[in-house]
């Protein structure tokens, strides 16, 4: 790791002003992706601004048909939250399957979505559930937030403060992990909204990160059952292809995981 200067922010405003005075700063959430990247000397921020101790960024609350998760809430907290397990079971499953127990104790939802790794799990949930990302500057719909592989609409000094999820009627997540990294090779989040609208979002497989599968959404809208998606395959044209799985194999996994997610959602 290259040398860096560590700052611990006490508030969101505090963090933003630290960033303003840093030469090439980075916000630090749980650090479970950023620190390994820095250890490999693939990132060299001059300053790290730690958001983890900002009280306002923590916590899970439910109000007005939505569940709001503070950006510094860890995956373990999401996975074990009673509110999430009852209102967003698919999200609890998803958070409980990120990395491993030690990673889940540190990694945060804000850090994960701000990084937008194409194999990360959360983006699929945000898109499928129609979540709203709140920052210190504005609110963004999930689909506007994720703009491509490792890219988001966030400005350099912008801080994700919370994510708000409308409570769906049904939701579930199913992923096929990469056998080495255990990141998603294909992860499918299915959600049926309170208004019966259906969204299917896929992570791990797309070259540009998370994407929706319209054909599956229409099929599920008229027939919410695993069989409805069993015959639908996504085109492998824009899918990732690497030593762990070809685009064709990932396309197959998308169908299989979609089927399993619908079955799990009940």
């Amino acid at each position, binding site marked *: 790791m290259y*040398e860096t200067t560590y700052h611990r922010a006490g508030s969101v405003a505090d963090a933003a002003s630290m960033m303003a005075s840093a030469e090439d700063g980075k916000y630090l959430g749980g650090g479970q992706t950023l620190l390994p990247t820095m250890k490999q000397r693939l990132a060299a921020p001059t300053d790290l601004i730690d958001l983890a101790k900002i009280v306002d960024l923590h916590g899970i609350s439910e109000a007005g048909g939505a569940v709001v998760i503070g950006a510094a809430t860890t995956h373990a907290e999401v996975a074990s939250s009673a509110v999430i397990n009852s209102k967003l079971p698919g999200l609890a499953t998803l958070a409980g399957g990120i990395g491993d*127990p*030690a990673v889940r104790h540190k990694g945060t939802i804000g850090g994960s979505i701000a990084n937008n790794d194409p194999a990360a799990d959360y983006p699929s949930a945000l898109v499928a559930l129609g979540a709203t990302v709140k920052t210190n500057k504005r609110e963004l719909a999930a689909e506007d937030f994720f703009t491509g592989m490792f890219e988001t609409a966030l400005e350099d000094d912008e801080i994700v403060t919370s994510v708000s999820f409308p409570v769906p009627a049904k939701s579930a997540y199913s992923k096929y992990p990469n056998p080495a990294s255990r990141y998603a090779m294909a992860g499918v989040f299915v959600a049926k909204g309170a208004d019966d609208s259906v969204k299917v979002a896929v992570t791990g497989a797309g070259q540009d990160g998370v994407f929706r599968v319209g054909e599956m959404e229409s099929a599920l809208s008229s027939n919410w059952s695993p069989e409805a998606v069993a015959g639908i395959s996504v085109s492998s044209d824009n899918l990732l292809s690497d030593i762990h799985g070809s685009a064709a194999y990932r396309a197959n996994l998308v169908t299989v995981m979609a089927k399993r997610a619908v079955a799990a959602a009940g």
Partner: protein
Amino acid sequence: MMSKVTMRLNGKTVSADVEDRTLLVHFIRETQGLTGTHVGCDTSQCGACVVHVDGKAVKSCTMLAAQADGSDVLTVEGLANGDELHPVQAAFRENHGLQCGFCTPGMIMTAVDMIERHGAKLDEKTIRHELEGNICRCTGYHNIVKAIKAASDQMAGMKTATE
């Protein structure tokens, strides 16, 4: 950039000036001389470095010492009560849950955290799943799983006995 980092380490307050880029594992191993916590990979996957920070298992190679400033840190050296081994330590020995010993401290710290979270509900499938972040090349996991199950059963029994 150098900063002063202070934490409770195995129940004792320690403090040192370290570079901001110092990882918690290096603070523990090099600054504090507690070499039971190991480094086995660069990508946060092997789990040889697992310690508890404020009661939760974390990978000390994926955390800056500065992030743990003000925290309570427990390493494998702080687990036994004097000469009395922690039940998980004893179970690893009794079940031959270790060979070369390198992954062992991280395995034990992961196991303690796992048992604390799951209580007596631990079955083989759960144990194997919960070990996703700890790699062992010697034991084939068979006896590690056995050891954790045995410790979990024993600790559940101890809890029942005190209730």
